[in-house]
């Protein structure tokens, strides 16, 4: 029984040996895609390897195996930039504009000084102050104001009590009865 279990993976492993390189490439591509989205969404410091691992078909350990840490990935882009510069692309660079907290996909551009030539990538995109106001200050303040209003009503009732026209006489008589 023991022997059978142990012997089983052997032929399977040999059979799968040739496509393994292909799987590794596909897994790396999968990780790259998820990771760029994760970095673009949350920035270098906000992105979590655990979340990238959860969204891919692989484990955290395998991500480090393939790519190393987050800094390593930026470094890998840096190597490609150096490579491009050696090939004459003096303005090669990474497109990851911080004004919008990074893009959905980080690009290595041959002409990073002119991102507009790549289907109109904006040179220095930033969050509209209207969106900033809406997503930043207004939301918590609005919820706070709603909560405070409801609480003010409650405590007004506690302090002042109901205004009951039909019960006024009865409440005036009550103390006399006792």
């Amino acid at each position, binding site marked *: 029984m023991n022997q059978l279990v142990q012997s089983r993976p052997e032929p399977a492993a040999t059979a799968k040996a040739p496509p393994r390189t292909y799987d590794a490439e596909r897994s790396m591509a999968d990780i790259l895609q998820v990771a760029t989205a994760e970095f673009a969404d949350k920035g270098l410091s906000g992105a979590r390897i655990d979340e990238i691992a959860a969204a891919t078909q692989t484990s955290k350990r395998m991500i480090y195996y393939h790519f190393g840490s987050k800094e390593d990935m930026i470094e890998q882009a840096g190597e490609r930039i150096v490579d491009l510069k050696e090939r004459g692309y003096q303005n090669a660079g990474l497109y990851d504009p911080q004004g919008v907290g990074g893009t959905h996909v980080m690009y290595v551009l041959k002409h990073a000084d002119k991102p507009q030539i790549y289907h109109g990538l904006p040179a220095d995109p930033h969050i509209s102050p209207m969106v900033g106001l809406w997503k930043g200050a207004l939301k918590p303040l609005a919820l706070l104001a709603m909560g405070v209003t409801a609480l003010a009503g409650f405590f007004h009732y506690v302090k002042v009590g109901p205004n009951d*026209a*039909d019960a006024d006489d009865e409440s005036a008589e009550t103390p006399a009865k006792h």
Partner: protein
Amino acid sequence: MNPKTQVERYSDSERVNHWIVAIAFILAGLSGLAMFHPALFWLSNLFGGGPWTRILHPFIGVVMFAAFVSLMVRFWGHNKIEPRDLQWLKQWRDVVSNREDRLPEVGRYNAGQKLLFWLTVICMITLVVTGVLFWRPWFAGYFPVALVRLATLLHSAAATVLIIGIIVHIYAAIWIKGSIRAMMRGTVSVKWAEKHHMAWLREKINK
């Protein structure tokens, strides 16, 4: 007149109209809050999840606005600001301390109710106009993104003001006993009318 005699304050159709607006407001408000802040996203469960909340919200809003326009037309004439309303507002301390005997006589609506009416009119119009501007996929595409962003901001601001106004409105109904009955069953006692809306009662009797 017997102080317990009931007088009509809201007709059947006025009450039905009011409650259609109220129910639509609760649904639009809860679905809107679900999309307003991540902390309130759980409210989307009431509408069948995120996508359904997003799909239903504008339609509920349109129903609310249509019903509100009908209510606005009915109540418009009763809400014109008069000189005595300013005196009433100046004495807001007497209002919140249940010292109504010191206040000037009130018609069908007091100054607070009138202000709430006009606030609601402004907010409802703002909500429907700005809401259409970023209603995807049908209308948002026709407008520049800067306008869509401004519309989103104004929509949230108007909704916030309206929600706060309606919290005050609901609280006032709980505080002033007899108001909920007036809007549910349509009548108030003569005593209630004498205390809160003397000028309106006199007008009604003289008719």
